[in-house]
């Protein structure tokens, strides 16, 4: 796996570190179990060093996984996977007024719902009003295709 790009090495290292964490194994313990040096495993986890398939297999085995499970990307989040949307009424009204396509409305909805918490705000929790959806559209329309 010497051809791993820096980014994919980093992602793979992070995946190993997360899976090791889920098992409650220190880096030293996993390295010992897999017959690797602790410093090498640390470099792999940080994405500094590449790792061979054979060594990856040893790590996967100690983590109770197949090689495929170890190297596969996790399932996308429901948002990224495009789960069923319930469009708020205020957004539908804004979309009608702005004459948005369905894709534009979907992207606007995604933008408006990506902020999930604000700490310290004095305003009570509330939904976007139609005017706020319109304001949001004005802010993002330059970045929207379609």
């Amino acid at each position: 796996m010497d051809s791993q790009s820096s980014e994919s090495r980093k992602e793979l290292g992070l995946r190993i570190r997360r899976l090791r964490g889920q098992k409650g194994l220190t880096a030293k313990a996993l390295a010992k179990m897999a017959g690797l040096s602790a410093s090498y495993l640390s470099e792999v986890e940080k994405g500094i060093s590449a790792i061979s398939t054979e060594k990856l297999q040893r790590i996967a085995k100690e983590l109770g996984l197949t090689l495929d499970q170890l190297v596969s990307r996790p399932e996308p989040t429901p948002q990224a996977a495009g789960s069923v949307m319930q469009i708020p009424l205020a957004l539908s009204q804004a979309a009608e007024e702005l004459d948005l396509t369905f894709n534009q409305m979907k992207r606007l909805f995604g933008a408006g719902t990506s902020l999930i918490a604000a700490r310290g705000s004095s305003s009570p929790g509330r939904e976007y009003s139609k005017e706020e959806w319109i304001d949001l559209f004005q802010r993002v329309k330059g970045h929207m295709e379609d």
Partner: protein
Amino acid sequence: MSLNLRNATDGEMLRLQAIQRHLKIDVGPWDEGFDVAVTKSVVRRIRPILKAEEPASGDELIEALALHFGVHFESVRSDADIRRLQRHYMTRNELGFAVLDRELSDPKVDALLFQLQNPSEIASHVAILNLRESSDHEFWSKIHELSHRLGEPPQKTLPFRRHPAERQSPVEQLIDAVSSEIGFGVTYFQPIVARHARHNRNLTISVVEAIRAEWAPNASFLAVANAATKFWPRPSMVLVAAVRGRIKNGRETREDEALRVDIQGHNKLATSIGMVPKLNWRVPHTSPLFAAFHEKRRVEALECLGDWTSTKGGSLPPIQVVTSASRFGLRAYAIISSETAAA
């Protein structure tokens, strides 16, 4: 403790129920002990990770959890930072950041949490820390935003996803309880306090500073002082004093202005021996807290708490304590601890 659900919105209730389902706990948001059950569940969830990562400090703990749960932190220290972050994320198709300037125009907003529309393996969430006015809350804000990620499922119900939370929001109240345990709780923070207590008879400002330096240099002094007081194995309290007038009919007046107790926190051992002054009590002239405020210097000395009295006839028990006090701006802090364990 149970959550205050009296003014909870439908959105908040849905969110609390989603947390219950996500963490698979038996008690519901309306039940006594829901916050405890949620906190325990989150602590159970992170235990193997922290066992594996072996963090030696609060900052390392944050780093480990952020890495495992895909939370990336960004700090805002100026308006230029807001513009930079907006540009950075919007060019990556994270259009939600278009509202960053609007959301941060409220100076009371300490932090924001965005769920990325295009998550990578490295980060699925970005927490924006508003440090323009002060960085005192940096540690707490990081722990708080991480706790959202640890306790809540990915947001996918719609009408309530954008949810600026007020301080009394039950969701925020719940997340604060979780944060409190992770950041300053029994599992990770108390052992550090216990170690310092073995080497020091009294909790003093210097001891709190040492604990803070070891655990979380970015946490506020008062947050560390309160948490350390809670776990100190001898009667202890933290006082903040400021010049204030009498309170009449529940309102502060300018009458009889003096150095008075503004905020106070204490541990259960202090309560058990009556070592608990009421808010707005005058600080006696004999107290090192009085000297620290007026002489603008750090003072550490013995005092007899019997000198602390109220005009209504209340008084503290006449026990000897060590008071460590220092002035910060218009206020003075004191950490007061008894040398002996409560009976």
